[in-house]
């Protein structure tokens, strides 16, 4: 009987302690900021995580804020660059609650924060873009691009106001895309097509030109090659003829009359053919052998 009472009262004490614990304490999570409110008046701002004591509801209430980096896409709208070009630059905002008390007093919740931030970001973006040329947004010249600078400028501008007015730290305003008003895209397409047409024509012309060059060079090379060969041939022939003449001359110089005699015989052999009729005198050897002896005596 006694033990049962002890056990029962122990259980009762435990349950009571648990209830008190729940009512009188609260936790601040590592990523949270808490504003403790007593009868509607903020009394404590808790930034450090851990376990804290409080008066039970309805005396004190706990207002928690997630202090993690939040992200949202700003509303898209047109802006004008310094050189009067219309651009549409969607940006995102990475922000977090830094001063929970100010945030609570000025905005209350994340939804309100977004719409307030939106106005800040839009006006900051338009202000900053008005100080830069279109060519500082897009350019083939790397040094001209000022996108990170523009982002920093917008971020700084927004961060300053957001912190002062709403207790929000804006960590980054980033440009997500570079776009143009819808009506302008048609002109861009026309220009792109014209550019491509130019490139295509240029490629075709260059190809033709290069091909022509190769052909012309081939023909020229051929002519040169053949001309050189002919020149060599002429020279070789000339040299050979001179050499032959020299050889003949050295031989024939030894007995010119014999040479003439042999040449004549040779010529005779060559001149006379089957159609030739030769009229000979009988004194011509070897026919002189036929001559009547009487005449010879």
């Amino acid at each position: 009987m006694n033990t049962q009472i002890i056990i029962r009262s122990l259980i009762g004490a435990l349950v009571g302690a648990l209830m008190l614990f729940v009512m009188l304490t609260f936790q601040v999570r590592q990523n949270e900021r808490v504003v403790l409110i007593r009868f509607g008046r903020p009394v404590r701002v808790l930034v450090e995580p851990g376990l804290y004591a409080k008066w039970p509801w309805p005396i004190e209430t706990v207002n928690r804020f997630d202090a993690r980096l939040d992200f949202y896409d700003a509303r898209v709208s047109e802006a004008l660059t310094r050189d009067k070009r219309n651009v549409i630059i969607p940006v995102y905002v990475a922000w977090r609650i830094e001063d929970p008390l100010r945030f609570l007093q000025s905005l209350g919740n994340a939804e309100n924060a977004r719409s307030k931030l939106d106005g800040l970001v839009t006006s900051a973006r338009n202000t900053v873009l008005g100080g830069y040329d279109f060519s500082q947004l897009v350019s083939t010249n790397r040094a001209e691009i000022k996108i990170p600078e523009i982002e920093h400028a917008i971020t700084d501008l927004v961060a300053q106001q957001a912190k002062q007015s709403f207790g929000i730290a804006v960590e980054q305003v980033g440009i997500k895309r570079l776009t143009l008003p819808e009506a302008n895209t048609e002109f861009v397409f026309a220009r792109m097509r014209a550019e491509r047409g130019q490139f295509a024509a240029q490629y075709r012309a260059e190809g033709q030109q290069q091909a022509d060059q190769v052909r012309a060079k081939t023909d020229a090379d051929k002519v040169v090659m053949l001309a050189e060969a002919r020149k060599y041939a002429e020279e070789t022939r000339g040299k050979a003829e001179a050499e032959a003449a020299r050889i003949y001359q050295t031989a024939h110089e030894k007995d010119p009359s014999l040479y003439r005699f042999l040449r004549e015989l040779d010529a005779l052999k060559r001149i006379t053919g089957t159609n030739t009729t030769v009229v000979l005198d009988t004194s011509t050897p070897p026919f002189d052998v036929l001559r009547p002896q009487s005449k010879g005596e």
Partner: protein
Amino acid sequence: MDERHGQRDLGFGPAAVLQAMKSSVRLLRWGLLLLLLIYLFSGVTVVGPNETAFVLRFGKLQPGLHSSGLLLALPQPIDEVVKVPTRSVQEIRLDAWAASPVNGMIAATLNPIRDGYTLTGDANIIQARFSVRYQVSDPVAYALAVKDQPALLEAVLYQAATEVIAQMTVDEVLASGLESLRAQTLRIAQAQLDRLGMGVQLLAFEVHEISPALQVVPAFQDVVSARVESQTLIEQANSYRASELPAARADAYRIKQEADSYGQDLVAKATGESAAFEAIEVQYKAAPQLMRTRLYADAMETILHQLQSTLILQPSGSNLKLLLQPSYGSPPLSITPQIIRDQD
């Protein structure tokens, strides 16, 4: 039967109810004890093989990271175990810039909100699909620093890609610069994520599809075909050169060879004939008259042998010794009879 049952129930009623209550209280007690036990051990958590966990005690981060295995933590309001998949590689597809023709129709213009695109350095419109692979490198930062990690990651990558593409020409983006687009986007995005303290390590940024706006794709294709055409023209010219030059070289070689052989032939002939002449000359010098007669006779033999007709006449006062008749069949030259007559 019914009556008897009723009587029994009535008779033993209070005792039975008491008995039932007693046993149910006992059951409840055991049940409570069991629940208490379950609660006490509810903090024990299994950390998966691809996860890393850390503990928040009363909301405060406890030092030490726990890799896969059993983690002995205290139950809920005291300890909170946060598990982060650190080892698995996660992928996000970035399709916001993809071309989206409505019902296969390509509109004349692009809406800056509905249609995703960005501008290149030479103010061309580019559409693309990317994906990014990443791993959590710092689980505490990943879980506690950023609220919607994938959304921020996505935004940062678009931001980086925008910045990189804005300084490239459309040709660079579409072809040669693709590698540098990937590398630079990865580098810029990683720097940005580190600055924001995301605790994420980017592994790869892939470009799945990148093209000019659908509206101008035909113009771009025309450039490609122009390039192919010009390449073809050049290749044709090159093959012309490749076939013509060897032919010309062969011709030149042949001409040279012919000249060489002609020259060699000529010299050889001259050498041969000179040698023959010199041989004869040696003989001739020994007995000139005899040699002369023999040569003459040889020649006459050859000549007369190949003639069809030979006329042999008595010598006369006339100095004419030889008459050449142009062709047989036709009458001999008019001069012939006269000569003969003269001889008569």
